[in-house]
């Protein structure tokens, strides 16, 4: 348990860690989506050419 001293506990580090995870995952997710989309588009164009 956190001892209640004068003023709040110094927990900035944990806050940064927490938000690093949150924003990090968010970014990675968006990146993953755009990468997958780009790859699929490429496949699509390739297959479209093959059709001709």
């Amino acid at each position, binding site marked *: *348990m956190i001892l209640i001293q004068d003023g709040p*506990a110094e*927990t900035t580090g*944990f806050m940064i860690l*927490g*938000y690093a995870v949150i924003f990090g*995952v968010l970014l990675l997710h968006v990146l993953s989506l755009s990468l997958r*989309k780009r790859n699929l588009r490429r496949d699509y164009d390739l*297959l479209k050419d093959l059709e001709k």
Partner: protein
Amino acid sequence: MKNDYLDETPQLLKVLNWISVLLLLIASWMVFFYAPLEAVMGQVQRVFYFHVAAGWLGMAAFFVAVVAGIAYLIRRTAKWDVLGVAAVELGLIYMFVNIVSGSIWARPAWNSWWTWDPRLVTATVMELVYLAYLMLRQGIEEPERRARFGAVYAILGFATVPLTFFSIRIWRTIHPVVIGSGDAGAKGSFEMTSTMLQTFMFSLATFTVLGIVLLWHRYRLGKLEAQVEEMRMEALDY
């Protein structure tokens, strides 16, 4: 699905893209600057806002998967299955964010990386259920059966969530666990002031819009994937 599917990103989605970015920026500002500093646990309490919002999004996404599952079982059109997978994927990611951010918050607040409180455990069990969903799909080759089984499991899994939550709550009230120092219900044991409440609600709203945007993108991706798969099959026939 029609053969020539590859359309421009819909206007509405483009607009929502920008709105969600804007909302995210505002929400972040509120979290870091507008909301007050909590008196006991300090800065780490700010994690609470996006932690809960992510959990909300995860839960909502899994619920969408249930709706999509029911729709698939009734209608049997592939698009519902695509939506289901998209929703589960989204749910898994944001539930993960919820669990990890919860753990990071717990460490300074309750002195351990893990507290066996009902919400955290239920979130983890949900995560496992939907990971199992993915494994189920991976083990089935026929698309129709895969979609059908996925739908059944998505619905069944979601139904167990309230039961899991209460079973763990009952567990703890009878024999409170002395691991860490969390007491049975006390996740978020701080006083919420009005600015905190505003930040909290705004974060929820932000993540809701964000969720819609991400789900829509993932859904479109899924349809494109199915389209490409179809074309691949046809190409192989030559």
